């Protein structure tokens, strides 16, 4: 299955966030929560769009592509509604999903999908790429679950790239599917769940904070990354929240965390 979906959110002349362009393509279905936009109308509102998997995907052979543009001063919360199961297909070959976002001057994007469960024999490649204008804000989360219970994960390669103008802020790739590597304290230390969130918000932490298998670290060129490793998804979420709470904008970041 090949699918391309687009989403554009802009500020209208009255300062409201409006969805200008929205094209879903099964299984990538975008559901705007219109009520929320209207209710909160005013300069501080935001558009809320849910990303719904309307078919079992990704399966081997699928290519899913989502493009998101947030206009100058606009604000979008794009969130998932359920976990994504990455499954092997009937045909051989890997599946691929890409999410490319552009956030213009003064724009804000919160990309908070639910977790991704990498099932046995899956072969998937995921890429998230964000291009930010100088004063754009972004938070993007990824929670990877290595297989369902008592299941070895298949192959996954997932990359996150965040750039601000010409400057790279984050480039990170994780590969799953090698149990010896995942068990090593030099890679995942046997964790079953890896949660990360990159935050380019109003303030940056001055110093890193860390606790039991979590940390929030300032990045070299601006922004911060929260990282948590855990034996299960509940603990991972808890640890990621702990990390985000220590961010200078932590109150705002954890308010609507999940």
């Amino acid at each position, binding site marked *: 299955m090949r699918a391309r979906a687009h989403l554009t959110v802009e500020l209208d002349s009255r300062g409201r966030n409006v969805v200008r362009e929205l094209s879903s393509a099964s299984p990538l279905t975008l559901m705007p929560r219109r009520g929320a936009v209207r209710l909160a109308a005013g300069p501080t509102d935001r558009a809320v769009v849910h990303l719904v998997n309307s078919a079992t995907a990704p399966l081997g052979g699928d290519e899913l592509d989502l493009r998101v543009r947030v206009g100058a001063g606009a604000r979008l919360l794009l969130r998932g509604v359920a976990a994504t199961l990455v499954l092997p297909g009937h045909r051989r070959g890997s599946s691929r999903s890409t999410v490319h976002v552009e956030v213009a001057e003064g724009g804000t994007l919160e990309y908070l999908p639910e977790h991704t469960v990498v099932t046995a024999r899956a072969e998937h490649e995921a890429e998230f790429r964000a291009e930010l204008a100088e004063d754009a804000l972004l938070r993007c989360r990824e929670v990877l679950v290595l297989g369902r219970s008592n299941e070895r994960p298949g192959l996954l390669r997932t990359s996150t790239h965040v750039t601000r103008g010409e400057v790279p802020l984050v480039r990170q790739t*994780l590969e799953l599917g090698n149990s010896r590597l995942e068990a090593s*304290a030099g*890679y*995942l*230390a046997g964790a079953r769940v890896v949660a*990360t969130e990159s935050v380019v918000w109003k303030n940056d932490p001055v110093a*890193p904070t860390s606790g039991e298998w979590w940390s929030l*670290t300032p990045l*070299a060129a601006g922004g911060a990354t929260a*990282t948590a490793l855990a034996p299960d998804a509940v603990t991972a979420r808890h640890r990621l929240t702990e990390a985000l709470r220590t961010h200078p904008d932590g109150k705002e970041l954890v308010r609507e965390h999940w």
Partner: protein
Amino acid sequence: MHRGLVTGPGELREFLFGRLRSAGCLAAVFAAAAAHAAGAGADGRHWRRLDSEIDARTPSPAQREASRAQGRGTARAGRVAWPSAALDALLAVSTRPHHPAVIGALTGGARAGTPREAAAVAAYLSISGPASAAVRLLGLDPFAANAAVAALGPDLERITEYAASVAGRDPAALPAVGAPALDLLAQAHQRHHRDEVRLFAS
């Protein structure tokens, strides 16, 4: 190590395997790219890009700091032993360059070495350092620690080949292998030491 994650030679070998495949691979890739850049007479802009691309791939400040501290030390020695235009160009961009960039500039500069050689050096150093630390901190048998390093020979070879094969890519397109557990352990290590200092101060 104070967490008890590594207590014997078997665990050390597994730790080194993960480190080689994650942080070691990243270091090898950028050492190879820097050697390639040195051979091609890269300008300041290119060295600056390599520097910021390593930063973007190193989310842990503790790891960035360690890389720059080692880079500076190696560059100071290297400037005396193997001066080159490439090393000068790198140091003009940053007085505390990342360690892999220094290894690449030294290898590809005065010695006119290959990206492959630079990658091999960086990959080896990524495991030989922790192995000797295990001997000193845990009192492991030095022969057992060296055997753990030697057992990784074929993996080291593969990482080196891989790093050399991507050395000519644009810096933005170089691989970005992450190491979440290493990053967390590095931050925990820093916290541990800070708390210890506080304990002594009180």
